[in-house]
């Protein structure tokens, strides 16, 4: 297994005028290919900032960030954008689907920026939607499908450019428990087929789906534990909440 992500002495301060608010101090972290990591911590702990840095959306104040062996800490905005389109997929709590575009068009969007041709684009998007079980909803608009289905569309969108890692920011935060289990099932299936997943959550029962849990508190890593390697249950049989 290769090391996909390596953080060395990462610091992040927010600067507002003369007030400097430190958010992350001296984070050291490695994530290997094929891991399923849950970042946990209370609000204000810095877990979201950490995920934004990991997801190449935010820059660091100091420290070294190696993504796939490449130092990305000092990259320009456009270079980061190009890395995001090629190597990263995002799943957000609020789905962030374009409301006036169909499900298929939403999933094709990352490929538009990647410069994939129209026919190929459609083929890849259809495959991604089929893999999340939504092949029959492609022409629907986001407001015509359920919340759980919307998040599955978002997962298909994160998946469609074949990224090295998928970042999921509270992916079940807006979902009921049944939909949550479905979404987690899909993420686990993706991980089982080799996809690296980094997920932010504050729900312990959701974090249990991950193989490794990193707890963040006051901008530092509080604990980093591997969960018991019990076999994951298929989503359809997990009828009771795990907590």
């Amino acid at each position, binding site marked *: 297994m290769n090391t996909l992500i390596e953080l060395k002495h990462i610091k992040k301060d927010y600067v507002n005028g003369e007030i400097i608010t430190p958010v992350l101090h001296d984070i050291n972290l490695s994530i290997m290919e094929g891991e399923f990591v849950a970042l946990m911590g209370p609000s204000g702990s810095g877990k979201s900032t950490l995920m934004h840095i990991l997801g190449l959306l935010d820059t660091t104040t100091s420290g070294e960030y190696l993504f796939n062996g490449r130092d990305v800490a000092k990259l320009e905005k456009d270079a980061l954008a190009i890395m995001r389109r090629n190597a990263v997929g995002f799943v957000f709590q609020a789905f962030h689907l*374009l409301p006036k575009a169909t499900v298929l068009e939403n999933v094709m969007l990352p490929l538009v920026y990647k410069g994939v041709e129209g026919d190929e684009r459609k083929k890849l998007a259809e495959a991604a939607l089929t893999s999340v079980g939504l092949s029959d909803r492609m022409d629907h608009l986001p407001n015509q499908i359920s919340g759980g289905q919307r998040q599955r569309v978002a997962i298909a969108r994160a998946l469609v450019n074949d990224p090295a890692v998928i970042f999921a920011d509270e992916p079940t935060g807006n979902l009921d428990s049944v939909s949550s289990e479905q979404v987690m099932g899909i993420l686990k299936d993706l991980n089982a087929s080799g996809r690296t997943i980094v997920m932010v959550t504050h729900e312990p029962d959701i974090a249990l789906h991950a193989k490794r849990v990193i707890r963040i508190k006051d901008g530092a890593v509080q604990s980093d534990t591997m969960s018991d390697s019990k076999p994951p249950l298929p989503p359809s049989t997990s009828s009771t909440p795990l907590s």
Partner: protein
Amino acid sequence: MKLSDLAKSAGQSLFQNRSRSLLTVLGIVIGIAAVILMLSIGQGAQGLILNQIADLGSDQIFVESGSSDTANGPPSPFTEQVLTLDDVDTLRRRGDFAFVGSQLISQTTVGNSEESLITSVYGVDEYQLEIFPADIATGRYFDNSDVEGYSKVAVLGEKLASELFGDQDPIGEKVTVKNTTFRVIGVLAKQGSRFFQDLDGNIYIPVTTAQRDVFGVNYVSYIAARAKGDLEEAKEEARFILRDAHKIDNPEGDLAKDDFNVSSQEDAVQTIGIVGTALSALLASIAAISLLVGGIGIMNIMLVSVTERTKEIGLRKAIGATESEILRQFLLEAVLLTFFGGLLGIMIGVGCSALIALVLTHVIDGWQLVIPPSAILLSACVSTAIGLTFGYYPAKRAARLDPIEALRYE
């Protein structure tokens, strides 16, 4: 991101908000339509006048009372009338002109036992038709003896003849001009209008009779002549003769010292050109203001659109859109908006011009629909430029949004 995807995305976004897009671009539509319409009407009028001048011939000279200073303004009732029939004789005797004719023009009542109306009375002489050619429908025109002998005879315009006499033959009938009775000896063929004046309602009488018996004056309104050779030389010759006749000491040829003004159709053409240019400049500035206002409207709505779509922009950036891709998307939306607004404006402008031309051809003889191709090209370019100019700032704002903050925007 490929250009075709960019265009598709921008087009979709405008189409999804089509009623707002239409309202936004209305300022541009109206501005461009007005530009096309005004240019079309302006050029149509100018073309019509220039055509009429060309029909009339370009060798005519006009002498009016008043120095060149006053003559360039509107005709003033306070200008002293200094031209007389003696001046006409002097010009004929001493000058080398093809024809010299006198005109005394005034409005008064003209009537017979049944009808009475106010129209233009032209006191003219036997050279009138040589200078302003017109056909005689029935009867005859004045000859030298009518003018010399203060004859009370009249020639009617075609419309006046039918207004006074209907289908009846007017030759030999009586008409009263002011308080004097004239015998009709001829009717002119239909002439239409010239310089927006209806010529067919006029009555023509000998200038001598007009001076002595009708109006009680001893001047003429103007002297018209046709040059034999070079027009400028002929004008200079007329000035020289009249300065001598009016005892004006003006060897240096300062036109402001003269009590008369000599002009030609060419001067009129030039004046029309100057007026046309000034009018175009005025219309252009009005159009520029309306397009500026339209452009500010575009900027306003684009800013609203950027704010409304903050989350969308955040998402696009998160999945890998660069700043320049976001910039191009919003800039293209603005340009598409104004370009199609411009096209719509051109269509409406051309349509209205055609409609107005259709009406005017019935009212004004010889009116033609003119749509300058340069105006269409200019309108298309200007509307595109407005999109680029007023779309840039909102697009730049969209491009600079921070993806994390944009995704969090509520």
